């Protein structure tokens, strides 16, 4: 058991992080943030406030212009290119647009995440079945994405994000394309995954969900953290 598996230790740390784009604008400015293991954090703020940039820093799609981003003990800026995949396997990501492969079935989309990370054998089938039943899609395993509802597509994406048993789950506007009832289904799943010990970071515009869940809220505005509350509301 590493220290990060114990609750209360930060699994994500941003230390005086700024992200400046080549055109000179700051997407993030002097951000300090520590997220503890098994925490559930909402990132809120208007479009362009820096939520997506923060997420891209965590999965090392972007590098900070200054400051340190540490994810599960790894300084992402110092991570050799060859070790980035190992970091990403610890992080599951879900997007607003699902990013499913249209030519693969539900089960294939999920198994894909295992196969391309080097898994093989009966293990692939077992793990795929496990997460499909977790998200309630066992009956839909042989359907293609265009045969699914939006909620089912997002659950497929969630299953894919979870199949490698990530320590952190990042959701970027996961309910942005879903109706309210379906959104709640997804949120229930996410809280369940969080209760099983996975650290959750979720960027959202959905005030109703944030206000109902009363979890930690980190509010970004123009690239700065303007509010960080343990049991926060969408708006201060």
């Amino acid at each position, binding site marked *: 058991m590493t220290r990060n598996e114990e609750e209360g230790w930060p699994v994500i740390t941003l230390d005086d992080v700024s992200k400046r784009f080549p055109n000179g604008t700051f997407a993030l400015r002097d951000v300090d943030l520590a997220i503890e293991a098994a925490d559930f954090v909402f990132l809120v703020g208007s479009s362009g406030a820096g939520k997506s940039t923060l997420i891209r820093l965590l*999965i090392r799609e972007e590098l900070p212009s200054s400051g340190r981003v540490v994810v599960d003990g790894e300084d992402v800026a110092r991570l050799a*290119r*060859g070790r980035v*995949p*190992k*970091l*990403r*396997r610890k992080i599951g*990501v879900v997007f607003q647009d699902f*990013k499913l*492969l249209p030519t693969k079935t539900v089960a294939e989309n999920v198994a*894909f*995440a295992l*196969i*391309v*990370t*080097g*898994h*093989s*054998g009966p293990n*692939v089938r077992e793990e795929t079945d496990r997460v499909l039943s977790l998200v309630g899609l066992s009956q839909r395993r042989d359907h293609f994405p265009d045969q699914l509802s939006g909620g089912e597509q997002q659950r497929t994406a969630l299953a*894919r*994000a979870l199949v*490698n048993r990530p320590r952190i789950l990042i959701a970027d506007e996961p309910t942005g394309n879903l109706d309210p009832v379906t959104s709640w289904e997804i949120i229930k799943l996410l809280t369940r995954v969080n209760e099983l010990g996975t650290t959750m970071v979720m960027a959202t515009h959905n005030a109703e969900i944030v206000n109902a869940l009363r979890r930690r809220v980190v509010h970004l505005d123009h690239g700065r953290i303007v509010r960080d509350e343990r049991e926060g509301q969408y708006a201060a």
Partner: protein
Amino acid sequence: MIRWATYIGTAAVHGFTRNPAMSLASTLTVTLMLTLFAFFLTTDRGLQAAVGVLESKVELAAYIDDNAKVSDVLDMKKRIEADPAVARVDYVTKDQALQRLRDIAANRPDFAFTEISTNPLPASLEVKMAEAREAKRLAQDLRAEIGKGVIYDVVDNPQVVDQLLTITRVLSVGGVAVLAMMLVVSLFVIVNTIRIAVHARRDEIEIMQLVGASDWFVRWPFILEGMIVGTLGAVVALAILFAAAGPVTTVMLDFVDILPLSFGPEFVGQLVASVFGVALLVGAGGATLSVRAHLAK
């Protein structure tokens, strides 16, 4: 392991078949390049064989002054033998030279031989070259000895070899230049073919990277696709070459019947291995360049 291999193999074949026009174009370009390459290898080998035969026939003769001391002549013989470009030096005495002339005359009815009391033929050192291209230099060295008591004249006839060496050199340089251009064109076409394949699968690549697939895992299907293009090109090129080998050899033999142009199984093996080697290198190299450019974005 099996799923991994299946995934990579399937993805590579899909990539190749998804865009048949481009795959065909790149295969044909690679075929053309490899056909030229194989033809060049074969011609080069043929010319080298020819040069070898002619080289073995190249001789220099240094005529010996009648008054030279035998010990000096033998010293000179040793000196020439010490030259690394020399295969053999024969000392032909005056009597042996005369005997040769008699033998030639005896075999030629149109050649009457009158008995003479004195022997006008000089003794000589006959030099067989190991490296024909050095003949000119050696002849010059020996000419410098003229008048110093041993050698009074040097006869060499390196023109044929010189011409052949020039042809070989031109062909080598020209061939390498043409091959280099074809190589660049092939690489360019493969890079573009794979770029299209990468573009068609960019969503898949994005997801692969997101879930933590290694760069190698992302690259392999494309590298394999490049190797498929290369292998197909090699197979077609060799088929063309072997189909053409019979008729071309016949024509060549009619044309230059002195050249011992036959290629043993050893050369055929080398040729096949070289063609496939170049094909795989170009295919895999082009693909690697293409995917690397995409991954670096």
